[in-house]
């Protein structure tokens, strides 16, 4: 395969890197406004309590204090609460129980870190000092922390609208067909598993800077957001800060998001509102502990799952019962994650005739839980890939062959749970991955390990995900409060360079490069002449932002649509300038030519002519060269692949070392393989983090025990291997570029690959995530005992 030097498919080095490697990035905390003040939040030290009284008198007298605001002030200004934008209905058709979510507490706090008051002062140090002096009188209530018992009688009620703490009780699939299939089963595999709670931990902590212009009566909010337009919409239409045209939201350079920066949070809401209250810009920057306490966490499921298999080893049905923790309040998309981003993926890459899933979600006195890299799909993949692996082992079949036998082999394929897989090559990816991983040589490597007193294991994960999270009409019918299309505007300047305004938002994904690559290739101009504008609601008209691996499939497709229009208009300009029929104009490599003649115009000349408009009248053609487009795809996209993890365990210490990581992914068309590989690397690292290191622990009173990098196991360089990657792309039919998306794949694929490898090494299935050295060591002891008993 030859690699193009520019355009689609080229590993072009990133345009944005220069500012990052020279320290010239522009993150929210790097921005300062004249007269700026600093906000510090007074947070609840209790997981569940009534607020009897807030006494801020002593704090107000502290030096430098500009203002201290509470929920009562929000209410006085009629500022609304935070919202959950996805409506889920119970099995009986009634709507979910959404408790109020005020930005500052209205008489009750529901998790440690909940927002009680904000102290605004001349300096950060003064704000901190004053916050210490705010005296809050709490009446402590029993905390509901444990997920398994959160709905038990007498544990206490977190929101009055949900007396037994159930947010909703939802299901998907055909129950009767599934039960019938289980009756016919030759073998039934049953597993119970927990999907551990994770803290996203983007390296840039969240930050917000609110500014109010009294002359214009308008607000500006600089914030660490993955989707500034959605933030503006929510802050305007639901929270009521200001009408959309009086609120500008700017998300400048953002230091990672992984989902956690999709949501509208209390802190940014308070900063922008308070800017008018105190008449000065208000800045807040989370410290890491605050991030741990109050950022939206991810995962946290308890699941019992069963798989019915016939005598041939064909899967007949899957039945799943999940309880998902949504924390103390419903975050912006919380309800969608354990439902429509989860259960529709329970078919995996397999042809399964019947599936039935029940999901009960509950409130607990813990931080809100929402989408984190993969969002629902890692949870589904963990269930399916553990079921498949255990079933194969129980039936004495090779896990890879068992998968190959059950893979979907024809597309389009309608699953029993909504999704219509439109293109793929699952068996091809499996075979390619097995080769790359030298599975054939595994037996020898295992024996070599055994000779050294080590346990070696190999684990597969054949994941699938639904990305793009569109078409809008489909997600609307499933409860989404918004459409999930994307917009783009291509502005060609008179001198021929191009600005592309996109509603996607880059916070590490490299859009400034890949998007420019697409445009430069299409228009035949150097990539340096293209700049990508994003992250500012005053510049880009509207957009849905970046999450769900949607910026390529949906965001770039919108650019393609706008480029189609630009090219069509430019052809008209060229035809008029060269006095030719429009149908005789060819456009190639940045040049417009008249068929059968030597007449030609470069793209830049056409741009200039479009603006000076000397060669045509306004009646013939409107001057200018600028086009916009909205793109709504015809289906979700379905990236899929096979990851193979090979581990070696030291039975003396319980340390699991990843010896080899192989991934073969189908992302459809790849625009920039260097960037796509980087996305896969990062995703795998987060998935390995979940499998081996990361676990969020609350004590029984709801105190977060893992609230720093000292206590929470972030994967570090020496915890991870180098990865060996391959692509096996089949074009996605639902968008013009054939892109499927790559951002979440690694995080989805990795956890079951690791756990399947560890259980393979151990010879038994009893290990939970995170499989820390201690947990593995205990599992090894169990293994030793069972061997002794044999």
């Amino acid at each position, binding site marked *: 395969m030859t690699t193009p030097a520019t355009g689609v498919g080229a590993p072009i*080095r*990133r345009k*944005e*890197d*220069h*500012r*990052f*490697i*020279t*320290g*010239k*990035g522009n*993150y929210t*905390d*790097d921005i300062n406004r004249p007269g700026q003040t600093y906000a510090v939040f007074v947070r609840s030290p209790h997981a569940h309590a009534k607020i009897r009284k807030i006494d801020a008198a002593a704090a107000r007298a502290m030096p430098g204090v500009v203002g201290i605001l509470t929920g009562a002030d929000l209410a006085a200004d009629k500022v609304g609460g935070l919202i959950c934008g996805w409506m889920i209905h119970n099995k009986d058709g009634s709507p979910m129980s959404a408790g109020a979510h005020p930005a500052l507490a209205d008489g009750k706090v529901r998790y440690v870190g909940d927002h009680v008051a904000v102290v605004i002062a001349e300096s950060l*140090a003064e704000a901190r000092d004053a916050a210490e002096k705010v005296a809050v009188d709490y009446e402590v209530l029993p905390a509901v922390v444990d997920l398994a018992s959160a709905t038990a009688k007498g544990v206490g009620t977190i929101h009055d609208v949900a007396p037994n703490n159930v947010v909703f009780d939802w299901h998907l699939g055909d129950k009767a067909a599934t039960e019938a299939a289980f009756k016919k089963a030759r073998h039934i595999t049953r597993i119970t598993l927990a999907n551990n709670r994770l803290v996203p*931990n*983007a*390296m*840039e*902590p969240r930050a917000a800077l609110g500014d109010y212009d009294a002359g214009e009566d308008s607000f500006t909010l600089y914030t660490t957001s993955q989707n500034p337009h959605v933030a503006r919409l929510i802050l305007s239409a639901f929270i009521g800060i200001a009408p959309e045209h009086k609120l500008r939201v700017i998300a400048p*350079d*953002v*230091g*990672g998001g*992984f989902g956690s920066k999709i949501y509208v949070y209390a802190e940014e809401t308070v900063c922008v509102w308070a800017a008018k209250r105190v008449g000065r810009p208000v800045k807040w*920057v989370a*410290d*890491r*502990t605050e991030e741990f306490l109050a950022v939206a966490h991810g995962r946290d499921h308890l699941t019992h799952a069963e798989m019915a298999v016939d005598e041939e080893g064909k899967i007949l049905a899957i039945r799943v019962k999940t309880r998902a923790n949504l924390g103390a309040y419903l975050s912006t998309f919380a309800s969608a994650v354990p439902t429509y981003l989860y259960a529709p993926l329970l078919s995996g890459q397999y042809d399964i005739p019947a599936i039935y899933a029940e999901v009960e979600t509950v409130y607990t006195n813990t931080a809100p839980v929402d989408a984190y890299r993969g969002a629902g799909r890692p949870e589904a993949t963990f269930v399916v890939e553990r079921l498949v692996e255990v079933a194969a082992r129980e039936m004495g079949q090779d896990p890879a062959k068992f998968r190959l036998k059950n893979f979907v082999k024809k597309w389009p394929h309608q699953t029993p749970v909504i999704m219509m897989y439109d293109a793929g090559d699952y068996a091809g990816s499996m075979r390619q991955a097995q080769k790359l991983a030298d599975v054939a040589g595994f037996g020898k490597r295992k024996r070599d390990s055994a000779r050294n007193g080590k346990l070696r294991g190999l684990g597969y994960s054949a994941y699938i995900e639904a990305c793009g999270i569109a078409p809008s009409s489909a997600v609307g019918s499933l409860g989404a409060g918004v459409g999930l299309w994307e917009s783009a505007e291509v502005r060609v300047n008179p001198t021929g360079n191009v600005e592309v305004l996109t509603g996607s938002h880059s*916070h*590490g*994904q*490299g859009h400034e490069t890949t998007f420019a690559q697409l445009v430069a290739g299409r228009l035949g101009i150097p990539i340096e002449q293209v700049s990508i504008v994003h992250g500012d609601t005053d510049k880009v008209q509207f957009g849905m932002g970046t999450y769900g691996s949607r910026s390529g499939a949906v965001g770039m497709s919108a650019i393609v649509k706008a480029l189609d229009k630009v090219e069509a208009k430019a052809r008209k300009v060229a035809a008029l300038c060269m006095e030719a029929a429009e149908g005789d104009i060819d456009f190639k490599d940045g040049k417009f030519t008249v068929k059968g003649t030597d007449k030609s115009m470069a793209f830049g000349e056409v741009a200039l002519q479009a603006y000076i408009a000397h060669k045509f009248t306004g009646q013939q053609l409107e001057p200018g060269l600028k086009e916009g487009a909205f793109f709504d795809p015809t289906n979700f996209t379905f990236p899929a692949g096979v990851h193979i993890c090979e581990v070696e365990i030291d039975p003396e210490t319980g340390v699991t070392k990843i010896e080899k990581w192989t991934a073969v992914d189908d992302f459809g068309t790849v625009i920039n393989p*260097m*960037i796509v*590989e*980087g*996305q*896969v*690397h*990062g*995703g*795998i*690292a*987060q998935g390995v983090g979940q499998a081996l290191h990361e676990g969020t622990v609350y004590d029984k009173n709801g105190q977060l025990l893992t609230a*720093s*990098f*000292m206590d929470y196991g*972030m994967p*570090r*360089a*020496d915890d*991870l291997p*180098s*990865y060996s990657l391959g692509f096996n792309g089949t074009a996605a039919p639902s968008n013009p570029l054939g892109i499927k998306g790559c951002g979440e794949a*690694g995080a989805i694929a990795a956890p079951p690959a690791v756990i399947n490898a560890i259980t393979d090494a151990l010879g038994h299935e009893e290990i939970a995530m995170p499989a820390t050295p201690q947990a593995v060591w205990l599992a090894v002891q169990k293994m030793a005992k069972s061997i002794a008993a044999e």
Partner: protein
Amino acid sequence: MATVSMTVNGKAVSGNVEPRTLLVQFLRENLRLTGTHVGCDTSQCGACVVHVDGKAVKSCTLLALSCDGSDVVTIEGLAHDGKLHPMQEAFREHHGLQCGYCTPGMIMSAIDIVNRKGNALDEHTIREELEGNICRCTGYHNIVKAVEAGAAAMGGKAMPMAAE
């Protein structure tokens, strides 16, 4: 308030600070050198690494006052006359960054590793030495490649830097 003076990226600077001011605050707030980042509050992440008197330090863990009279180099002080430091170049060439937030600290740490361990660095050494720098985006694969290449490009000698 107390007065503190030091050399930062080759320039003599001084400022009035509260005694509790951290070096990273002095750099970011007083000098507006915002390339040095803060990613944690427990000296774990390394987003704040700068060089003080030729050694990599976590600037979130040092009082500005304790650096009085020191020679400080930050990420902004690495490139000269528009020419990038080989380690900066290597991070770009090998896609060793995504969101860029950890990057200044990574690059400053990487240069320090080369200063201590020489230019022929193997993967194992690089991974061990990067223990104190957390990156959430890249999975480290390309950072390791970048450090290896940057080290080689530094030619086995520590690059002369702004104030060194």
